[in-house]
């Protein structure tokens, strides 16, 4: 049996005295769409930061296709085929959409720190960047700089950067944050399309998105995974309802009552 695409083994993170991630174990299989849900402050983004090498682990191991990547730098992990997006827009304010995507492609196409070839003369780079631009629906915004894009377009570019160069494990951190219903639906379509056949780990607050997209769901509460399973399992899990879904429902009810 081949190892899972991504495996977390007793992953821990402490910031000083604060124990943010408390022994998380998680397996994500090849081609699986796995969602992580949980209340604010549960440590979802921190978990992504640990997997992608943004933060160092305080304990435990991360395996990518069976290979231990714990302690590797972020760029090394990206080179091993794991890419991530960010919850807060994290793009290049002064680079255009086209330039940004070209940059995102360069390493995987093997150009590294090349300084003797003109970038305009690298045919695959231009072609692939243009393709990518069409896929994320920014074809008309080719020469618009990151800072001047609309919010939804910035989110699309965020995804474009992440999927550039065909990573096989993709981590998306709240890709629909701050979007309207219609925009979120479009974003989900996009995510489905670009992650087809790949392994996806997604943090998402929008439950409609989660239950529509995910094959399996893990619930993270106070740095611990309290449940993992298919959408129906999670929906009907009592402790999950109490810890997360229930609390939102209660809040909504009380908010509803208060407004009357």
């Amino acid at each position: 049996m081949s190892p899972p695409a991504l495996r977390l083994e007793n992953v821990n993170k402490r910031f000083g005295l604060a124990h943010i991630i408390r022994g998380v174990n998680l397996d994500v299989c090849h081609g699986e769409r796995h969602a992580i849900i949980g209340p604010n402050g549960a440590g979802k983004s921190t978990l992504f930061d640990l997997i992608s090498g943004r933060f160092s682990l305080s304990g435990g191991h991360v395996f990518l296709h069976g290979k231990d990547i714990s302690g590797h730098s972020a760029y090394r992990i990206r080179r091993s085929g794991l890419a991530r997006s960010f919850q807060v827009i994290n793009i290049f304010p002064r680079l255009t959409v086209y330039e940004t995507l070209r940059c995102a492609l360069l390493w995987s196409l093997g150009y590294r720190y090349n300084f003797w070839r003109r970038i305009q003369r690298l045919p695959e780079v231009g072609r692939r960047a243009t393709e990518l631009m069409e896929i994320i629906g920014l074809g008309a915004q080719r020469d618009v700089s990151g800072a001047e894009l609309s919010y939804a377009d910035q989110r699309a570019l965020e995804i474009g950067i992440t999927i550039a160069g065909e990573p096989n494990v993709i981590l998306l951190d709240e890709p629909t944050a701050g979007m309207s219903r219609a925009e979120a639906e479009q974003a989900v379509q996009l995510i489905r399309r670009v992650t087809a056949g790949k392994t996806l780990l997604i943090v998402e607050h929008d439950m409609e998105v989660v239950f529509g997209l995910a094959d399996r769901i893990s619930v993270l509460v106070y740095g611990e995974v309290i449940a993992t399973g298919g959408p129906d399992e999670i929906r009907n899990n009592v402790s999950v309802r109490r810890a997360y879904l229930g609390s939102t429902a209660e809040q909504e009810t009380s908010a509803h009552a208060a407004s009357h």
Partner: protein
Amino acid sequence: MADRAYTRGLSLPQGLGPGAFFVVSLAAAPWVFNSNAALTVLSLMAVAVVFALSYNILFGQTGLLSFGHAVYYGLGAYFTVHALNYFAVSRIPYPVELTPLLGGVAGLFFGFVLGVISVRRAGLGFAMISFGIGILMGSLALILRHWFGGDGGLAGNPAGGTHLFGLTLTSPLEIYYLMAAWCVVCVALIYFFTNTPLGQMATAVRDNSERVEFMGYSPYQIRVRMHTLAGFFAGVAGGMAAITNGIVAPDALGFVLSGEVIIMAYIGGTTIFFGPVIGAVILSFMQIQLSNYTNAWQLYLGLLFVFIVIYAPDGIAGLLKMHAPAMRYRKLHHLLPAYLLVAVPGGVFLLGLVFLVQMGYALHGAQIFLTQSFTFMGLAFDDHSVWTWVIGAAVTAGAFLGARPGVARARCAWERITVEIKAAQALASRADGDTG
């Protein structure tokens, strides 16, 4: 769509126009400025152009604010002078014309070594380390007096040794054309590098070094390479200066020069490829020519710098580029009346300001040279009279206020043509969509 050389990362000139203009003006300059002194000034401008562009590899392109860039320039100059003196007496037929290359190699080496230890962090960390390295090298130059020639520096004669193409490097004209050739080669190379994968990634590192890591790149590796490249071109510039001046002193790696290169790049515009070229020409001109007329030239330079930092952060090149869309859509004539309304009182204001500053200097000078009298534009003024000061200040202040209606009008005109250009662009893209 054809793959255009379109870059916001570091705005690059489109087509051959600006490059051809640059080469032609370099080639033609000696016909206009043909005295020996003027030719030396032009040679030093060519040096400054290379130096300023090498600085912008760090600052404008990679986002590394260096306070010690003269270190690489100075070391390049010293290595070149040592090479000149060595090849003048040795049997190795290395042509003098190519010695700036050795300065470049020295700059490359130190750019790499010092880059490795200083570019781990960008921002304040790098700025402070580069400042520290500047201090270190400056004091080293005064400790290793033999190698650096002490306070007086080291002389080297470019006329000795072997030469290429039958050159002798004895006339300022020959030296100028050699400097112009080096300048063209360096500008072309620096331009080329901005368009390579490394050059493009450098702009990405400048904008968001963290995200670059999640593209598979190490920002540190990119910064080291860019720092090395910048060191190389600064070293070449130093070598060019050594040949032009025939001497190099420790101030070639000092703070003043490190500061001046920042000012050059900034005044010209760091976000645009040719910006630092403009800045280099302006600063060299002020430094060499304006300083003949007034001791206050540094004050004027400072005023210009402050003005640019506050009102035109993209420099003079940025101001020019701002007008490109207006020109393309033939809207420039809407701006001209307003600009004229600003230019007339603005000119009076500047004259008034210069008048006051010069009079201040004259008053100060009068305490030293009692016989000196103050003349401005051929007229004598009494700098000891309160009335001269009051009237001068009143005219200056009045002109400043008088420029305000023009500024307001220019703003209105800008708003109007911005809207019009947007409408024209929308129309054009719709037409594009119909045909395509």
